[in-house]
Structure formats: C-alpha cells, structure tokens
C-alpha cells in the first residue's frame, strides 16, 4: 500500500535561517507531488507541484523553492525564512486518479 511521510512535524526557526522540509512517498511510482501551505483556520494554498523528477512548477511567487531529486522525494526549501513563512505545510501526492493523499503536515513557526 502507498504511504506518505513528511517531517519534521513541528519546527521553530529564527528569521533569516534556512529551511528544508522533506516528503517521501512509498508504494507507488511517478506520483504527482504537491506542497500546500495552510494559514491558521484557513484553506490550502498550492505552492508547488511536480509531475516528474526535476520538474517543478510554482503557483505563487514567494520566498520558497522546491526540488524533486528522486521520483518519490519532494523537498521544500528556503534560503532565508521570513516571519510570513510561518504556517502549516502539507505535502500530498496523487496518481492516475484525481484523489490526493496527504502527509501529516509540518507546523513551521518563524520567530
């Protein structure tokens, strides 16, 4: 069966520090991968999506970047965090069906 792992679960980082959030999927190949951000009590904003290794598309301009070094690995990064980068980050994957499967999320607090 397919599983998705996202870590860490929580992270507190100072302004200006770098960021690296990792997401891996098991049990499937060539998944579509997504990074979403969710502000408190709000909906999900799509940040990045990828349909294959090295193929990244960005939905909104921001201080973040994403990479897909392996088929089932999706990384969200920043060189210098801003206070406004705080939020709940969710990784998700989908396959041949439109249904998406989500990781448990990372709560990032930039202080």
């Amino acid at each position, binding site marked *: 069966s397919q599983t998705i792992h996202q870590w860490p679960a929580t992270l507190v980082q100072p302004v200006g520090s770098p960021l690296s959030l990792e997401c891996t999927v098991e049990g499937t190949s060539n998944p579509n991968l997504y990074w979403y951000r969710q502000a408190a009590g709000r*909906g*999900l904003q799509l940040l990045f999506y990828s349909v294959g290794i090295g193929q990244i598309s960005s939905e909104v301009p921001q201080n973040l970047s994403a990479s897909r070094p392996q088929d089932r690995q999706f990384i969200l990064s920043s060189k210098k965090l801003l206070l406004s980068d705080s939020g*709940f980050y969710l990784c998700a994957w989908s396959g041949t069906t*439109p249904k*998406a499967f989500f990781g448990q999320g990372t709560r990032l607090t930039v202080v």
Partner: protein
Amino acid sequence: SQQGEEDPQALSIQEGENATMNCSYKTSINNLQWYRQNSGRGLVHLILIRSNEREKHSGRLRVTLDTSKKSSSLLITASRAADTASYFCATVRNNNAGNMLTFGGGTRLMVKP
C-alpha cells in the same frame, strides 16, 4: 485564487443532528471532492463526485452536485462527536501538469455530545 468556497465557515450542532455544508466554485470542473481535516493533521479524502453525477452516497455522507449553479453540498447524517473536524471541497484543474487540486476555505464543524 481559491476555486471552491465553502459556507458556512463554522457550524456547531448537537450529536444526532444532520450537518450540511455547501461549496461554490467558479470554473468548469471534471469532478469535485470533499476532504476532512482533523485539527493539526493532514487531509483525508472522503468522497468524489464526477461532473456527470448529481448525487453520491458513502455511509452517512451524501454529496450533491449542481453544475448549472456551480455548487455542491455535503450532508453528514446522524452526526457524532467524532465528526468534529474541518471539511473542504476541492476541484480538479486538469492541465499538462497533472490533476491539481484547488481547495476552498473549509467549514469548521463542531458536534457537541
């Protein structure tokens, strides 16, 4: 921009009552999905309804879709305290980059025991 918008934003009911949440969207869709999110967790897929379907059932869940009004509703019957969560509708934007889900702002449901 958000494709789907749910209303109400928050709903509080007693256990045993029915809960109805609505979703409106703006563009043509191939399907519409509903997801549930427990506080501080990831989203879990509940049900998918295709654009050529008008109603779909899954257990205590009933989803309707009106493509002429660009709206959908999720009904949870005989609610339980464990149904307390946020519920989101999502539409699929098909493009060359795969099936991209766009979510609404969600309805926060509280079921009081």
